[in-house]
């Protein structure tokens, strides 16, 4: 690399002063810790002469009037300093950091603000803090970082997604916030594509001030800025890499072969059946979990080059990330390439171009997850008496249960790959019409090409298995009649699908700022936005792939007679949004700030009756600490904030307002499948957006010198919930491809308190400690549900079991409802003497509580069901600490979610399925236990949904812990490295929880009403990593 340092910047104009003592001044710039500051500007006041500090923090300005010159420094994040040269030729300058980052600029949507003047409740994060966590998805990295933002993991598999909930669940429809990357809409599903290393900052708008985004703002807005270069800085190269080993954090405690045989014998005997095992002395048998969980590698490489000339700044990045799954290795892996260019240039003195381009290529392989048929479900329920492979080295069949297959065979036979190519970018031109009036036009785009390929080889999992694709053990293909008399072999098949999605967004806005009488400032932003999204897709299945091999798995290799394709399908959609927005901010001094936001949105998602909506927000802040009368010494800075506003949520399927004939109306005439029509979703012309009214009161303060405290209290009421309730069967929406109408009904309220406390200090000038804790308390309650409906049933328990969750007035969204138990019936006498009649009860059965006091347990209706838990945590807490001493740095991040419950729904209640080890302590006779019921193959009510299946899901997790060492720059500089850091780190090293399942950090895969249900969740891995980062 470049060996010797040079002055990067030479002033454009220089004057030869005609009098005075001319000479050269030079020196170094450093911060209060003595660290060199690179890239800071030093200018001679009143001239254009200046310099930018180099890698050593060195600056030099020649030909100046040494006696009179005043040097002015500027560097973002640091206070501006003015120093008289006073004839010196060496002036070393120490810059002090801006405390509290009060003046740090943050993006707030079509403009910028500072923490000092912003009137809303938000949280600003520096990208570096998230990158340090080495978490591939930005949403997972955000967990525990910000109060009021709860992240839960939908799947721990590589490339798995998370649920982001800003200030609680406000609907049981789409709760995802609006995510904008450099102003470009980036939906949360596609967050896999974003490389955390490309991120400079994240600003989360939590309250009504997100209303500048109108009909899409109700779930909060996350503004992500990618890295930019700095002016007048030589190219700086940053390289970072880490690699790590992942492993399962936990194994479930299941029965071993001997225990299994004993329990199954007892179970069959209790059910009046012959016992299956004559000999129960079978040892430990197969540990299917050992066969499934493997150590897997994760690796990541990043390169960033950034810098700038006088008029242009640039930042270019590239990265490679690859993660194998702890279940299935390359069968469930995720690989990602990223490229990024961020370019800003002054086209003329008054015109600036900023251009962002992000490219991602990703590949994800996935195994069946979550629920019956998933690899982990099969693993948990496979019997330990069965070997993985039989004596002929063939996979064992697990014959006794038809829907449980050998999970090792299943992994081997699964080929499910998705590829995504994504192009996201922005071209923006800002033009200064006058000094105070800037006119910005930008064009944003987001294009994604998604390919899917699923290869299904001919497989045989054993007689009677529904997953068999072959006719028999010899893997003969089945035959199928595709038309009268035309039979074809149905050999190995491949499904291929390709879909494209493109967003095009044009935005145009003016920013005006106007000051009068020195202390009054009015800033105005006004603009329009036109957004259009299109998607289309095509897919089909081809048969008879040669050699039963993935090598030929392509539709082009279809050998089926007549090129027969099955399941061919296509889709297309379009949606549009037209918006106008206005924001007026008034500040008096810096003491009083007020802001008015109005946005008008028109959305093609709604019918002509309700197409346009207006969303206003008012907010204000008062800097109490700047008042003359303010005299609290301990609190250096005190700002009070207040906001109230209305925003919307339009996330429903397109054209839901009209009944479309896209249902499935298919019948067989003349033995041929004949396509008819049927109404798909019933229409509702009055459909409109969900409306959220949010009130927020908050305070920001700095206590003593080292504590920063932010407090918020909010009330968030969401009205007119958009949902598709289960409707009466009489409406006739239960046919294939038919759905109930989407209607506006129901209100939800979220009330909460958020606290963020940060502390930083320095011990003996050498040890830097900064630490922060944040906490969120949210009370979620359904306030109203549609007329005539008692509740909306949610997810089901077990196989064909009853409804276990509900949306019901007076309860949290998706709360658990079922029977409450009160121990076990110990004897027939106890049953006979019980004041409550429980049909079918025998000794050893769960004793249910008669909720309505009618003396009988009603299995017939809901009258004896009660609330058994909620998937929503009462409190979430985040804690982080950073300590540095000389070259060493240490950090830790913890996250805790407390007070939520989880439904244990991965136990297959089958005569031969394996069981959790708690069954060893089953009821076997009077007073043997009062916790676990008897086991039997016979009919019983112990398997209906009760609190027996609800567990406390609270947990505390050490998300990341790391120890780093930065080599002495004096040494590394000899090889042109300005900074070299090596570190070791661990993610998910420790989780404290009472929950029995693999992982308590469970999101939802089936919408808000399916939260907190564990179907055999793919757990997050524990990762031990080592990494290095170099700066040149």
């Amino acid at each position, binding site marked *: 690399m470049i060996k010797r340092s040079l002055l990067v910047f030479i002033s454009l104009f220089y004057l030869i002063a005609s009098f005075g003592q001319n000479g050269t001044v030079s020196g170094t710039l450093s911060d209060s810790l003595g660290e060199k500051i690179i890239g800071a500007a030093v200018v001679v006041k009143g001239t254009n002469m200046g310099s930018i500090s180099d890698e050593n923090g060195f600056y030099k300005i020649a030909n100046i009037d040494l006696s009179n010159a005043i040097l002015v420094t500027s560097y973002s994040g640091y206070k501006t300093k003015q120093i008289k040269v006073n004839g010196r030729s060496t002036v070393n300058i120490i810059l002090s950091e801006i405390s509290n980052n009060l003046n740090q600029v943050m993006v707030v949507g079509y403009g910028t603000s500072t923490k000092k003047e912003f009137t809303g409740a938000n949280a600003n994060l520096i990208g570096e803090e998230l990158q340090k966590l080495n978490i591939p998805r930005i949403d997972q990295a955000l967990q525990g970082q910000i109060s009021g933002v709860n992240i839960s993991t939908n799947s721990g598999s590589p490339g798995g997604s998370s649920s982001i909930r800003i200030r609680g669940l406000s609907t049981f429809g789409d709760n995802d916030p609006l995510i904008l990357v450099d102003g470009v809409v980036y939906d949360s599903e596609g967050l896999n594509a974003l490389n955390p290393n490309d991120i400079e900052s994240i600003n989360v708008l939590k309250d009504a001030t997100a209303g500048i985004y109108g009909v899409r703002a109700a779930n909060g807005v996350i503004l992500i800025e990618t890295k930019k270069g700095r002016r007048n800085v030589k190219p700086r190269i940053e390289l970072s890499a880490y690699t790590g080993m992942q492993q399962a954090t936990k194994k479930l405690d299941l029965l071993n072969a001997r225990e299994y045989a004993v329990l199954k014998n007892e179970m069959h005997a209790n059910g009046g059946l012959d016992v299956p095992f004559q000999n129960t002395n079978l040892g430990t048998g197969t540990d299917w979990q050992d066969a499934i969980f493997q150590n897997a590698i994760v690796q990541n490489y990043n390169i960033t080059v950034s810098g700038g000339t006088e008029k242009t700044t640039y930042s270019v990045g590239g990265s490679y990330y690859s993660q194998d799954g702890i279940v299935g290795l390359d069968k469930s892996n995720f690989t990602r390439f990223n490229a990024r260019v961020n370019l800003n240039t002054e086209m003329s003195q*008054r015109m600036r171009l900023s251009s962002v381009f992000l490219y991602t290529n990703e590949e994800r392989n996935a195994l069946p997850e979550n629920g019956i048929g998933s690899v982990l479900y099969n693993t948990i329920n496979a019997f330990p008496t069965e070997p993985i492979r039989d004596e002929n080295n063939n996979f064992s069949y697990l014959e006794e249960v038809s829907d449980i297959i050998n999970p090792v065979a299943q992994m081997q036979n699964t080929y499910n790959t998705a590829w995504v190519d994504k192009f996201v970018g922005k071209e923006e031109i800002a033009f200064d019409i006058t000094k105070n009036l800037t006119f910005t036009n930008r064009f944003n785009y987001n294009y994604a090409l998604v390919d899917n390929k699923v290869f299904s080889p001919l497989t045989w999992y054993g007689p009677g298995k529904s997953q068999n694709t072959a006719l028999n053990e010899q893997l003969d293909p089945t035959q199928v009649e595709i038309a009268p008399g035309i039979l074809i072999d149905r050999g190995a098949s491949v499904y291929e699908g390709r879909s494209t999605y493109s967003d095009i967004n044009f935005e145009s806005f003016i920013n005006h700022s106007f000051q009068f009488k020195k202390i009054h400032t009015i800033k105005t932003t006004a603009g329009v936005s036109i957004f259009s999204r299109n998607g289309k897709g095509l897919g089909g299945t081809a048969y008879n792939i040669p050699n039963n091999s993935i090598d030929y798995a392509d539709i082009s290799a279809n050998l089926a007679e007549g090129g027969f394709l099955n399941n061919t399908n296509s889709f297309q959609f379009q949606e549009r949004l037209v918006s106008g927005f206005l924001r007026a901010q008034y500040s008096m001094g810096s003491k009083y700030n007020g802001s008015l936001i109005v946005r008008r949105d028109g959305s093609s998602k709604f019918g002509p009756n309700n197409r346009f909506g207006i969303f206003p927000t008012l907010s204000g802040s008062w800097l109490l600490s700047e008042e003359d009368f303010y005299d609290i010494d301990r609190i250096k800075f005190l700002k009070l904030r207040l906001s109230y506003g209305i925003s919307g949520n339009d996330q429903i399927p397109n054209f839901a307002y009209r009944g479309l004939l896209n249902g499935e109306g298919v019948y067989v005439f003349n033995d041929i499948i004949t396509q008819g029509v049927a109404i798909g979703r019933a229409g509702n012309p009055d459909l409109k957006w969900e409306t959220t009214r949010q009130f927020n009161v908050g305070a920001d303060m700095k206590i003593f010198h080292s504590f920063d405290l932010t407090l918020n209290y909010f009330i968030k009421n969401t009205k007119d919930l958009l949902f598709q309730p289960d409707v009466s*069967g009489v409406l006739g929406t239960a046919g294939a491809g038919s759905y109930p109408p989407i209607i506006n009904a129901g209100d939800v309220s979220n009330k909460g308190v958020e606290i963020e406390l940060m502390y930083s200090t320095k011990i003996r000038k050498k040890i830097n400690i900064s630490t922060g804790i944040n906490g969120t308390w949210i009370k979620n309650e359904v306030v109203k549900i549609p007329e*005539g409906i008692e509740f909306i049933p949610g997810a089901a328990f077990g196989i064909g079991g009853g409804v276990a969750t509900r949306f019901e007035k007076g309860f949290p969204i998706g709360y658990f409802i079922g029977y409450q138990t009160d121990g076990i019936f110990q004897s027939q006498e106890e049953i006979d003497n019980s004041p409550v009649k429980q049909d079918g009860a025998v000794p050893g059965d769960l004793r249910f509580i008669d909720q309505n006091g009618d003396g009988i347990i009603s299995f017939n209706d809901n009258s004896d069901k009660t609330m058994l838990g909620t998937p929503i945590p009462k409190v979430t807490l985040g804690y982080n600490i950073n300590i540095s001493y000389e070259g060493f740095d240490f950090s830790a991040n913890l996250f805790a979610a407390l007070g939520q419950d989880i439904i244990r729904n991965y136990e297959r209640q089958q005569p031969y399925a394996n069981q959790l080890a708690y069954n060893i302590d089953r009821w076997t006779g009077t007073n043997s236990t009062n916790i676990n019921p008897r086991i039997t193959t016979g009919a019983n009510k112990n398997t209906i949904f009760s609190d027996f299946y609800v567990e406390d899901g609270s947990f505390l997790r050490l998300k990341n812990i790391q120890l780093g060492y930065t080599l002495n720059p004096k040494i590394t500089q000899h090889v042109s490295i300005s900074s070299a850091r090596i570190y070791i780190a661990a993610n998910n090293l420790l989780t404290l929880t009472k929950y029995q399942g693999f992982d308590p950090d469970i999101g939802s895969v089936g919408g808000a009403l399916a939260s907190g249900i564990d179907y055999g969740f793919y757990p997050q891995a524990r990762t031990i990593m080592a990494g290095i980062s170099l700066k040149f």
Partner: protein
Amino acid sequence: MTKKITSLFILIFIFPSIFSCKKFLDIDPLYTQDAENYFLTPLDYDRALTGAYDLLQSSFMTVWVGEIASDNSIAGGESVNDTEGLHEIDNMNHDAVNNELRSIFRWNYSGITRANYLLEFKDNIDFEGKDKIIAQARFLRAYYYFELVKYFGDVPLVIDKRIGADEVTKIDRTPKSEVYAQIEKDLIYAASILDWKNPTKGRITKGACLALLGKAYLYQNKFDAAAMTFDQIIDQNEYMLIDKYTDLFTVANEGHTETVFDIQYTGAEGGGYDCLICLEGNAAPGFQGIRQFEGPTYGDGNSYNLPTQNLYDAFNPSDLRRDASILDIEAFKNANPSVKYAEGGGGHTGYYNNKYIKKKAEIGLPDNDLTSPVNYHVIRYADVLLMAAEAHNRATSPDDAKATNYLNQVRKRAKMSEINASGNQLTEAIWAERRLELSGEGHRFFDLVRTGKAAQSIDGFVTGKHELFPIPQVEIDLAGGNWNQNKNY
């Protein structure tokens, strides 16, 4: 230069403003039709009719419930929790929380709604042949209502329109008699329009309309009307019993002369357990297949709906219908030593339903437990003869000669001796014959209820309660909670 740029920018700024927002937002869905702007061509009607036919395929559930609820079979399956609703029905301890009953309720109303959608727009355009489409739609509506009345008694009657979520909370259960009146009206109309023959396999014929009409009369004990209606079919000589009873239920023989009303299935489309209503195949044979079967002829299945010893013993050993209706799996294994199978934890009787059972030669696309191409023979001519016999025997002025003749036609085909009886003795003989002739086809429970014999035949059957199934509680809730539950549930 600056001026130029300024004006350019102002143009760009103004452009979106002059651009019509309303027009920009007023987009139509691509390549799909709108429910309110449909029925513009004859083809539109035809396609909507196909959509209404679609729900017939959900009747595989009746093959299960009609048998399992009766003394003919047990629920079976992998365990007692496997489709728990069927086990409860088997044990006569079913209640208002039952997924299978709910499916029956919803699926039949979906069929009604699709027929009503077409009928709502019946006057949109006129074209030749429209009356035939209307007639089929009305037949389908009648069939779906008949199913509902059979199961649930009084059900809300919605005619020629679709209703919304608000409206449903304002309507009550319609008395059974009124629903029957509408069923009769629809079927009489349909029978007057449709022809005896339709070249398209699967289309409703006049015979199907009359047979269902006669059956509806029979279920209301309107024996005179039933007898007259059935005679119309018999006298037409359109149908004929086929020679071999064993040939009745094979795909190869579908459309035989005994077919009065078949529900059509195909194996040419795959399917999954997550959406049984999406299937184009018949789910009953796979579910009723032999558990983990390996061997000739049959395919492996889920061991549902297993015939009881009681049914097996009801047959005279020389009755060739016994082995055609019931597969004795141990006997089959003895004859074919390669056979392997498993007993399900949901119960085992040693018998399988041999009419609707997965066979190697009749296998559909995966999951082939669900995609059997075997049609469900809802009404066969033998059933018509037996219903006619019963109607004549129980008519105001009985014609036992005719009744005996019809009964013996059925017995003769089974190579059974003729019966000569009259009065109550003949009634009993006809009912006994119905069980033997039609076992495994989903009729038994409803016949037992209809004839007042349920309590004596079904363990746990409570008179005054189990004649009807309970309205699913969730359906009562969703309809506003105002409906009364059926008695004693």
